[in-house]
């Protein structure tokens, strides 16, 4: 009975944290596009009320099950990512393979965004979906190799162990390339900022084109939540987890996650959308080798330190 209560409390805590992260991301994103702070904080409630009041619409011969299912699943993936984060030494979904699970969840987003484009039975939606796949190929390999670096240094795939292994020198400090590749990947699977061409304005919002009302609301909330969840997972991976003076560990994790979310969303809102066919080449020929070199440096440091 007590176990059930603890699990329920934990799940609601994770859900609340996910929504708080999504709200922070949306407010910071809106501030970056030139709106005032108070106005930006009200953006999420206003947009939610607007879209909840809006009617659902559908398109001719839409694949409704996959279309709606994919849209609503984005939030679920974000919540699962947050559930992997160790708050005070232990996570809601603890495991010796936390790093692998984080990677698996971000790959689930591939299917979800593509299905979002496919399900509407619309030309621009499908174009957006395929753009996302091309983009995902470009950001995902650097992201995977970036995840290798902290796991290698800590000698474990457990996020709590990775967080604990950092001591005073955070991995973000001495693995800057891996950290940057990870953050770019987060923007990629949140479809926000420079890698947001799948939902770009120049194709009439791409995968989002035919969405309306609550369906659009959950997708947009899911995108901001994914950005926040990605930032939250970066805290044990690169920012020392709950390490910090005076405050308890869980508070430090939340503070770091919120700050990183705000910073990342601000940068994303400030930068223009990059064209997909121009991204593949630099990401694979320059960025990927750099991340692999980063892994090599980490491996050498680990071997020398023994």
């Amino acid at each position, binding site marked *: 009975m007590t176990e059930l209560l603890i699990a329920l409390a934990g799940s609601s805590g994770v859900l609340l944290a996910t929504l708080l992260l999504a709200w922070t991301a949306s407010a910071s994103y809106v501030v970056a596009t030139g709106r005032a702070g108070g106005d930006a904080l009200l953006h999420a409630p206003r947009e939610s009320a*607007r879209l909840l009041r809006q009617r659902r619409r559908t398109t001719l011969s839409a694949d409704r099950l996959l279309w709606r299912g994919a849209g609503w699943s984005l939030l679920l993936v974000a919540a699962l990512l947050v559930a992997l984060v160790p708050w005070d030494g232990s996570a809601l979904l603890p495991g010796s393979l936390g790093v692998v699970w984080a990677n698996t969840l971000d790959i689930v987003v591939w299917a979800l965004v593509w299905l979002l484009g496919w399900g509407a039975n619309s030309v621009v939606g499908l174009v957006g979906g395929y753009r996302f796949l091309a983009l995902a190929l470009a950001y995902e390999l650097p992201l995977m190799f970036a995840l290798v670096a902290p796991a290698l240094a800590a000698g474990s795939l457990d996020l709590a162990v990775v967080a604990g292994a950092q001591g005073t020198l955070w991995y973000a400090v001495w693995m800057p390339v891996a950290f940057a590749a990870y953050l770019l990947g987060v923007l990629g699977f949140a479809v926000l900022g420079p890698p947001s061409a799948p939902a770009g304005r120049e*194709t009439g919002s791409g995968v989002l084109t035919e969405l309306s009302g609550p369906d659009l609301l959950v997708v947009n909330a899911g995108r901001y939540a994914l950005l926040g969840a990605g930032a939250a997972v970066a805290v044990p991976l690169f920012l020392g987890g709950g390490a910090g003076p005076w405050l308890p560990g869980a508070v430090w994790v939340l503070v770091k996650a919120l700050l990183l979310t705000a910073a990342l969303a601000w940068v994303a809102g400030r930068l223009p959308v990059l*064209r997909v066919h121009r991204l593949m080449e630099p990401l694979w020929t320059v960025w990927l080798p750099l991340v692999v070199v980063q892994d090599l440096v980490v491996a050498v440091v680990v071997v020398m330190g023994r």
Partner: protein
Amino acid sequence: MGLRDLVVRVATRRPRVLVVEMPGGAPTRMAVERELDRRGWPVGTAPGSADVLLLAGEVPEPLAEAVELLWDQLPGPRARACPSGPGDVAHELDAAQASLRDDLQQRADARERDREPASSWVEDDVDHGDHGDHGDMEMAPGGIPLAEGDDDRDGLEMDVLVHPLGPLLDHWPGGLELRTRLHGDVVAQAEVHRPAAEAAEAADDGPVAVATWDAVATVLALVGDEVWARRARALRDQHLGLDGAGDQHAVRAHLARLARTHVLPHSVADVLGRLLDERLDPAAHRLSDAALSSLLEGHDLGDVRLLVAAHAPLLPLGRAEEVGHD
């Protein structure tokens, strides 16, 4: 004030407006953008999530039917605004917001509407009457014919789709219609049509600098660079003689930066640069329809939007026949 009223007020505080320019409606559209910037209302890019359909300029007869089709795609609550000129914009936007807040009117509107999705824009020759022929259904699911095969530019067979761009599109020159044949997302062929050419003839171009800065602002808005798009709009308004100010050089340096990082295709940055330098005179270098379609062919859908936006000052407003070649 009840909870329902509160939700309605919060929901309609900043309605999303889909701004569609009509032929010759550019001055009205600029006034609309100014007013939306002032109010902080977001601009929509798809009818599916818009609250207000704003038609900038007089709707010409040939486009009336298309406007109704577009109007039908707004899910509702919805409002239509048709300002007759720049002076009328603020009033029309207020009226649209008031109409969105009128729950009774919105519910009556919803009751009258057909719940089925709008039918296909493709002129179907399939008679989907009472016959239950399975073969026909497979050839045209939902009345939409399947894509045909054609030789791709790589020599492979590709599915080819006929896809219209315009005449009713946001961030798009009024009245321009492109009928494109798509190979994937690449425009293999583009046919230029102007279904309402006569309507634009009386329109005045205004100063060249205004059209140019307007093109810069549209391109920046299309790549999601909202902060710099607003700066370009301020410069445009300055040239219109309104109070707006901006650093021309800063925006130009930013454009060069975007071209260097391949955010903008080189041809887009190039034509904007030449227009800003006044090395291209829109009166003398009108772009014929044939030149426009050959310019667009071979680019992907996104680049086509950017190219059209950048070349907008060079596009003829009226009939194609009266326009000389480049």
